[in-house]
């Protein structure tokens, strides 16, 4: 088995469009949540959302290139380019069969709506144009990045609801560990538009703390009342460790273990043991013990049932003395398909800058989170071993064990 190095990362999120900006927001505990008046006017139960601000879609791409890309694919491209620049891999070093692309994504809603609207309006399919067929596929991220970056290895998208990004990073690491690829550009992307969120809003799963948007997402807090949808794109460059060392790359961290599990239970209510099976396996694969873990980057989305289940799962693995736990969704909202990958990028930023970001808006535990060591305030210490949880509808769980030094 090969060791897997993290040599680059990039992100476009509601916390910022650069690693530096996102690092500042994480450090200061700043929320990226806004009140969207458009959603309110449309009849959303909750008009709260994360918002990407100041992102220039045309900064790196031509009109022709953007034609086949929805906004989140463009954001994924920018994040990937930033990650590659950080890795200092040249174009020649990735334009080969040993370089792959795996992203997590589980929808592309706008293009699907637009193509139907165009057909109804114009009365012939020809008027839909050439871009929509590509924009409307959930694999639009990897198909476009493959074309733009000219990688020639693995190229596919993983769809597993809100654990898509976690499984994408995990499978990318596995391909390198098993010797199937030398490097993989991986991550997750999530559309942030209201069109893709209206049916989710219908489930009454979103927070209605409308008077105070930045305090609406409060994972593990006793007064939590639902999640806040969000999105963007996160990307990482993973490389075979020995090759990264040989080319003199800066190694920011390692993926030491990736494990998965599924609940085999309810479609939307997480089980009491699914996530812990993945956590235990990831810790075991890394060859360490629960006590070695310095920080749990929780999946917790701020829903009553989900956070309680995760708290119980974490308690079952760590016992009464858990490491510091925080859910960054308290600041970002739930980045859904992207979240499992963005947690890895956020973890890399925190480790690099020497802090554990706070679980903001945590003021009072419930009976489940009372058993956890929730980091309600920033901890100014660089975590070495980080466990990243993610879980999705249908009970699909991903757990990544990262090591930073």
């Amino acid at each position, binding site marked *: 088995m090969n060791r897997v190095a993290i040599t680059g990362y990039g992100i476009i999120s509601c916390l910022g469009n650069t690693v530096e900006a996102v690092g500042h927001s994480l450090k200061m505990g700043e929320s990226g949540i806004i009140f969207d008046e458009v959603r309110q006017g449309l009849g959303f139960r909750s008009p709260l959302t994360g918002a990407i601000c100041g992102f220039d879609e045309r900064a790196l791409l*031509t*009109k*022709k290139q953007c*034609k086949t890309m929805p906004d989140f694919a463009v954001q994924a491209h920018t994040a990937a380019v930033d990650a590659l620049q950080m890795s200092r891999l040249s174009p020649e070093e990735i334009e080969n069969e040993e370089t792959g692309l795996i992203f997590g994504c589980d929808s592309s809603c706008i293009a699907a709506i637009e193509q139907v609207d165009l057909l109804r309006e114009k009365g012939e399919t*020809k*008027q839909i*144009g*050439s*871009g929509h067929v590509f924009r409307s596929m959930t694999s639009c991220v990897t198909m476009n990045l493959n074309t733009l970056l000219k990688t020639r290895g693995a190229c596919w998208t993983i769809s597993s609801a809100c654990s898509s990004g976690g499984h994408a990073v995990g499978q990318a690491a596995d391909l390198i560990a098993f010797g199937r690829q030398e490097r993989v550009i991986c991550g997750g992307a999530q559309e942030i538009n209201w069109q893709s969120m209206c049916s989710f809003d219908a489930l009454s799963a979103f927070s209605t703390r409308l008077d105070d948007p930045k305090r609406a997402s409060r994972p593990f807090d006793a007064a939590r009342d639902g999640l806040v949808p969000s999105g963007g794109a996160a990307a990482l460059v993973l490389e075979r460790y020995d090759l990264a060392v040989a080319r003199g790359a800066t190694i920011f961290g390692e993926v030491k273990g990736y494990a998965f599990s599924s609940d085999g239970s309810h479609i939307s209510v997480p089980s009491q043991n699914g996530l812990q099976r993945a956590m235990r396996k990831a810790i075991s694969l890394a060859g360490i013990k629960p006590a070695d873990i310095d920080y749990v980057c929780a999946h917790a989305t701020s829903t009553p049932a989900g956070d309680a289940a995760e708290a119980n799962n974490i308690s079952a693995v760590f016992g009464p003395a858990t490491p510091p736990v925080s859910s960054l969704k308290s600041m970002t909202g739930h980045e859904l398909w992207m979240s499992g990958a963005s947690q890895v990028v956020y973890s890399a930023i925190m480790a690099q800058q020497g802090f554990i970001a706070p679980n903001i808006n945590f003021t009072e535990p419930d009976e489940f989170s009372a058993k956890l060591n929730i980091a309600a305030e920033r901890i100014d210490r660089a975590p070495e071993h980080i466990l990243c949880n993610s879980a999705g509808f249908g009970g699909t769980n991903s757990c990544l064990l990262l090591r930073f030094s």
Partner: protein
Amino acid sequence: MTDQEIVEQINISIAKEFELDQDTLTPETTLFEDMGLDSLDIVDLVIVLEAAFSFKIREEEAIRKIQTLGDIHTFVINKKREQENKA
């Protein structure tokens, strides 16, 4: 529209759609090699021309034979003249 006005309108529309420098466009400019278009772009080219000149392009065979910008000029001028004659 005069032939010259049609040619200018075509060049403006194509330059805008495909982000090309209008000054580099000549009748001899080839669509695929010089302009860098591909088969997907032709789908959008048809939409652009239909919108610019208010006609429908149904001559699939004629479109497939187009190689240069000059071929487009000729195709559109002929279409416009047909349209005028019918009117």
